[in-house]
């Protein structure tokens, strides 16, 4: 079996994996990083979105072997020393989650969106999050949260 090295939320791992193992199953089943959930099997829902070397990917459509040598950030790795990431705080403040199942992927996708557009307007946010489905909120509060998160990231992130 192939051997891979991967850093997840700042911790290095060396694992032997089946070539067919999906990154999301490596995270959840092998490494116990269950903060990243799985909502579908066709790359539509985006619940499993993580950052791979700083860019968002749907971890159900990446093989673990493709992640060899890369750095993965999941929702579990966003807060530091108990302080939430501005985007996490914004989701809380704007009531942008209900059941919370889509939230890890939504927050990660939003952070990646702000990376490419630090001051997105509502239309840009809606377009940017098109690959992430939410069944609870109707998206209004998510759009507000991303706008707020982007503003706070601009202030608080160098």
């Amino acid at each position: 079996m192939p051997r891979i090295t991967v850093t997840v939320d700042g911790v290095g791992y060396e694992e032997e994996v089946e070539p067919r193992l999906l990154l999301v199953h490596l995270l959840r089943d092998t490494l116990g990083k269950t903060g990243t959930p799985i909502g579908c099997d066709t790359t539509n829902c985006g619940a499993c979105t993580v950052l791979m070397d700083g860019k968002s990917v749907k971890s159900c459509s990446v093989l673990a072997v493709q992640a060899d040598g890369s750095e993965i950030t999941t929702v579990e790795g966003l807060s530091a020393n108990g302080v939430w990431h501005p985007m996490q705080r914004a989701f809380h403040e704007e009531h942008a989650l209900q059941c919370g199942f889509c939230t890890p992927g939504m927050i990660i996708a939003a952070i990646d969106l702000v990376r490419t557009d630090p001051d997105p307007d509502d239309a840009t946010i809606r377009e940017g999050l098109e690959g992430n489905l939410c069944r609870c909120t109707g998206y209004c509060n998510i759009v507000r949260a991303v706008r707020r998160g982007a503003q706070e990231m601009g202030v608080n992130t160098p």
Partner: protein
Amino acid sequence: MTEQLTREPATGEVGRARRRKEDARLITGRTQWTDNIHLPGMLHVAFLRSPMAHAKILRVDTSAARGLPGVVAVYSGEDFAAEQGSLPCAWPVSDDCVIPEHPPMAVSRVRYPGEAVACVVATDRYRAADALEAIEVDYEPLPAVLDMTGALTDAAPKVHESGNKAFTWKFAGGDIDAALQDAPVVVERTYVQQRLIPSAMEPRAVVATTDGDSFTLYSATQIPHILRVMAALTTGIPEHKLRVIAPDVGGGFGSKLQVTAEEILALLITRRLGRPVKWTESRSEGNLTVHHGRDQLQRITVAADRDGRLRGLKVDLLADMGAYLMLVTPGVPVLGAFMYNAIYKMDAYDFTCTGVFTTKMPTDAYRGAGRPEATFAIERIMDELAAELGLDPLDLRRRNWIAHEEFPYTTIAGLTYDSGNYEAATAKAMELFGYEELRAEQAARREAGDPVQLGIGVSTYTEMCGLAPSRVLGALAYSAGGWEHASVRMLPTGAVEVVTGTSPHGQGHVTSWSQIVADALGVPFEAVTVLHGDTAVSHKGMDTYGSRSLVVGGVAVLRACEKVKEKARRLAAHMLEAAAEDIEFDAGSFRVKGTSAAKSIQELAFAAFAAHNLPDGFEPRLDADATFDPENFSYPHGTHLCAVEVDTETGMSKIRSYVAVDDVGNVVNPLIVEGQVHGGLAQGIAQALYEEAVYDGEGNLLTTTMADYLLPTALDLPDFITDRTETPATTNPLGVKGVGEAGTIASTPAVVNAIVDALRPYGVTDVRMPCTPERVWRAIHGSSS
């Protein structure tokens, strides 16, 4: 009776837009979804599912699969036949209701695509899936039964030996023949409620484990308490040996109000193997086998006088049950029966529903469960009647709705609406919407022959929720009650532990219940914890569905607080050497009237714990249980207005603005209420524009993935304008009404009414849902879809 909303800031916790306690773990990934649970020695289950809609099972050969690496066991339906029982239906709505045997795993016949025929138990999920391919099944295909009308003909192939009719259920109020006879205006329509897939974001998952004596079932369920009773009855595991836990649950919308084959089979497998087992569904399995929603054919006739006054309403419904009756399958259209008359006064109402078996996934509760269907049909036909009479649709509604001074009002369907103010909600919605201005713009666009036409859709809805008075449920032949239970315990340090029988899966009960308790006991919001979703912790409950949690469960919490307070008052009187009636309670302090002598509730909690100085006969505890059975349903209402731009050249419909003014009585947390409305709107709009479960001519489900079944994305929905009026409910001490389903119930007809309104100059009187560009284009150009 009715009050206008006052916008004064809340002085207590109730009414405040508290940010949710639930969020912290959800936004940091410290969640416990069922699929996250890993137990030592745990095995993984994968199911082999029927590729056919209807077939005899001739042979299932599992021998090749048994020898594969990592495979611990392989079972077919034959292996479970003696012990698997029949999946329960708790709502045999009528005396003629046929409840066919529903084996969790098919033994000799499959009746819908996706029905489980075998399973593999293996050391990991990949090996379990691999081994499925080594199982051989021989089927003898039987004809699929897909069309309800056809299914009821004598020549139709039978889904069950007894035939394809599940039941007939009737209701009559007033003299419908007299109302229809010589009515100046009669409008008749047939509406199609397409089949929907609820699509909670968390797929179902089950973990079952046993120590050889007792069993624990973790499940992504809305109903741990009901599931425990039903699973015990189905499997023969004694109820007291079965614990059911609903950990974090990622949405339900009714789809997790079920006792599923996989839950029962997981228990049977762990009983056989003595090891923990897990099953997690894939989304494509879920689209096939999570119960579906809606799927009704509605023939509706309305009779009116020339001035628009309603005389009578007749509804003839065919409801697709799918292949079996699941937990509340037949009850869904029956709940709808009480809502077709909606907010309107009329002389007579006649309702008939026939439940029909087909070779499709069973239907069951999906957000609104019967009331969205009813509301759609009446609100659509009110617009048709308005067009027939040349009246503004709101004007027609005004001529027929129950005036606010007429509450409480007993409707033609026999329900007593306790409170409401349709005038106020409508006035506010019209103002926010700019109704007159948009009507002027519509006229101008029509005049100019603009290829993009503007339509205005109206929906003045009410609904019955807060399920429900147990007596009424009994009268409707439902097998259980509708009460809810709560425990409130003062802990020695002054913190408060609340146990609720409701089972939240996104609704924020922990936050809202904390607000109720904080006010009732005068303790800090932060000092309250709420436990739920585990039958070993919450021993009594009726769970979460039907917009019941606040109006039944929240009231139970309040009642338990009142009992705690009375005990505390007695203890305070004893400690302060005063009479109990001389003790007054304010903001957590029990004070002797007219003095400064007082004990805080925290001091009393510790005093009860230490038990050094209690009144004679006073048990050393400051806690109480309460079980609340509501006296009536809850009747939220509101007015929704939707403006849609329809491109007559492409058939594309775009929502330009959407205003929802809802009246859900008093509000505990406006943030959570708004969130519920937003989410409800999204699902109702999705039925109008996007979603449909489609079976092909052979009975195969075509929409098995999220690429085929179109859930709305952020790009597909507008920014909603929401507001409220507050007419308190008079049937519970909080004055609250249910909110979970209101948005879904109201919005579907608002959107379709807007599309049809845009196209009325083109002779269009209906567009079948979902109103795709193709269907709209064909409606404009006179070719049916």
